[in-house]
């Protein structure tokens, strides 16, 4: 493995607003999530292959890239839908267990939820490290650390009650059609 010489100093760039849209297939109950840059989140019903997709909800959020202020390296986070904070809903969940261990040492875990073509994926480790470095480097509270971990640490994404950092119910900014 080749180590990079630059001790990166990340800044958030190319911030763009949009909607996290959730759809559910009423045939097989499968969920899928995507990001929409449209002014109003799409709510159309449509058939795609064997699935019949129905709008199941949306929330305002944003996307961004990271750029190193020293060497100019840029990292895209196109597949990242958001960061999730564990609420401890499942005692067997790895994210819950690790969050509790971290909390005792003032290390706060956030799960990076990423999707590709509607299906959940994990971000590459390098990208998780960029997010960890960025958010931790900004902290002022002594001894505090942010650790961004893969979403696959959740025991069951379908029943997870974790809090994703997104804007729900912003009706004045979310025109209904």
């Amino acid at each position, binding site marked *: 493995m080749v180590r990079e010489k630059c001790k990166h100093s990340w800044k958030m760039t190319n911030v763009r607003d949009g909607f996290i849209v959730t759809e559910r297939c009423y045939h097989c109950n499968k969920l899928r999530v995507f990001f929409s840059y449209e002014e109003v989140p799409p709510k159309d019903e449509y058939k795609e292959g064997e699935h019949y997709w129905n709008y199941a909800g949306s929330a*305002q959020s944003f996307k*961004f890239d990271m750029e190193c202020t020293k060497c100019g390296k840029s990292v895209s986070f196109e597949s990242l839908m958001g960061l999730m904070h564990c609420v401890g809903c499942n005692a067997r969940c790895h994210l819950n267990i690790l969050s509790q261990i971290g909390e005792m040492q003032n290390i*706060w875990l956030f799960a990076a939820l990423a999707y590709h073509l509607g299906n959940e994926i994990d971000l590459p480790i390098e990208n998780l490290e960029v997010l960890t470095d960025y*958010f931790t480097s900004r902290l*002022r509270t002594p001894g505090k650390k942010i650790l961004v971990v893969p979403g696959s640490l959740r025991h069951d994404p379908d029943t997870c009650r974790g809090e994703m*950092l*997104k*804007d*729900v119910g*912003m009706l004045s900014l979310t025109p209904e059609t």
Partner: protein
Amino acid sequence: MTVKELQSKLKLKPLNDVNDKEIEGAFISDMVSDVMAGAQPGNVWVTVQTHKNIIAAANLVDIPAIIVVRNKQVPEDTLQMADRVGVTVFNTDLDSYSIAIKLYEAGIKPAG
């Protein structure tokens, strides 16, 4: 200025434990995504939002205190989470504009 000093200066009503962290600057927004992208660590956050999402965002950005304006009621689970992560939540009758003036008069500058 510390969170405790801010409470006393602006006569804010604390809804949970008041921490003694240093405040630098203020950020006014009702969007969690806006705070994640634009707020600076140490800012006091002024909002009408009361969902516990605001505490997770404040923890991520290292915001020591949140002022909930227009006397919005803050749910108990939001306050429990605030205590867990060490964020003080205040309540005030004032609206965002009025509290912004008071923050400015107290010497708190905008974010950034």
